[in-house]
């Protein structure tokens, strides 16, 4: 005999909005927009708006499907326990339908209104986040963040493809930058909320390999990230403005990462919190510098 799930009243619309992880979407939309603005070909403002809307909706759909799949895990973590599903404000089926519907809508609209290349990359990014990261890797390997981070790296590629209909070296470098930025960014966070991940049984690097190995990995990933961040300038893909901005910004990132790499668990975890906070600013400003550089050119 099966027990029926308790009937829930229809979820509030704000809970559907919360499923899309609006805060994460900010960075996704911004990097997508910058990828589009850095492209050599212009795009009609209405189509540009549509492309950005599709990127945001696609990211929102991936976030909703992530929360649908991870409701059990979210329930045991303090940071996520108040989300609509673990808090019992929404049934899982509604979240699944919402996520799948939103994903299909964003991809179809991108394909019909913008171009097939952008729609194809958007599809890959949603599937990558949901299937590769959420379903396959997150609970299985401490490298979950590394490979899953690729999902968050797609927006500049999609933005560029929306404007040009193809992919080039610069957006691939932007993809690599976000990809390599993700491990130090998330592991800095994981260091100061380590106990929460441990409680949920997620094999985050600090949980399975320990704090010292995590610090070393943060340092190791910062090196290729720094090279990729500066590379567009010597390769002749950007001007001196981006070159100077990327060197200064990346030097600060590297200095903060070095403090974490060579540091120990200090009271308050200040270096880790500083690196995490700066890493967000870093990505916003370096992408902004790329757009300004394009305008100056």
């Amino acid at each position, binding site marked *: 005999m099966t027990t029926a799930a308790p009937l829930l009243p229809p979820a509030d619309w704000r809970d559907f909005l919360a499923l899309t992880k609006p805060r994460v979407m900010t960075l996704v939309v911004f990097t997508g927009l910058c990828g589009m603005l850095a492209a050599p070909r212009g795009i009609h403002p209405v*189509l540009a708006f549509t492309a950005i809307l599709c990127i945001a909706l696609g990211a929102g759909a991936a976030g909703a499907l992530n929360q649908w799949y991870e409701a059990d895990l979210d329930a045991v973590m303090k940071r996520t326990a108040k989300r609509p599903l673990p808090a019992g404000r929404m049934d899982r089926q509604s979240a699944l339908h919402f996520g799948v519907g939103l994903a299909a809508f964003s991809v179809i609209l991108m394909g019909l209104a913008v171009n097939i290349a952008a729609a194809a990359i958007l599809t890959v990014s949603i599937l990558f986040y949901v299937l590769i990261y959420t379903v396959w890797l997150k609970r299985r390997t401490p490298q979950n963040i590394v490979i899953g981070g690729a999902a968050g790296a797609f927006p500049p590629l999609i933005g560029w493809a929306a404007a040009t209909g193809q992919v080039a070296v610069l957006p691939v470098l932007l993809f690599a930058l976000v990809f390599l930025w993700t491990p130090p960014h998330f592991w800095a966070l994981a260091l100061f909320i380590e106990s929460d991940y441990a409680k949920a049984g997620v094999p985050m690097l600090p949980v399975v390999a320990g704090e010292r190995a995590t610090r070393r990995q943060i340092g190791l990933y910062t090196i290729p990230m720094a090279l990729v961040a500066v590379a567009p300038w010597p390769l002749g893909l950007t001007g001196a403005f981006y070159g100077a901005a990327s060197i200064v910004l990346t030097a600060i990132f590297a200095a903060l990462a070095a403090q974490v790499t060579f540091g120990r668990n200090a009271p308050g975890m200040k270096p880790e919190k500083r690196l995490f906070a700066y890493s967000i600013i870093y990505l916003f400003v370096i992408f902004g510098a790329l757009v300004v550089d394009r305008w100056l050119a």
Partner: protein
Amino acid sequence: MMNDEQDVIQRRQKARAIVMAVLLLAFVALIFFITIAKIKEGMAH
């Protein structure tokens, strides 16, 4: 069913219906502007 519970359900259904109506209107407007943009692009080529 309790009256309070029914009130909550009705209030949420109404709010969701309003949000859905606004989104559908926005979608219609978006499709209109996309069509205009596509026609203009077609004429430019």
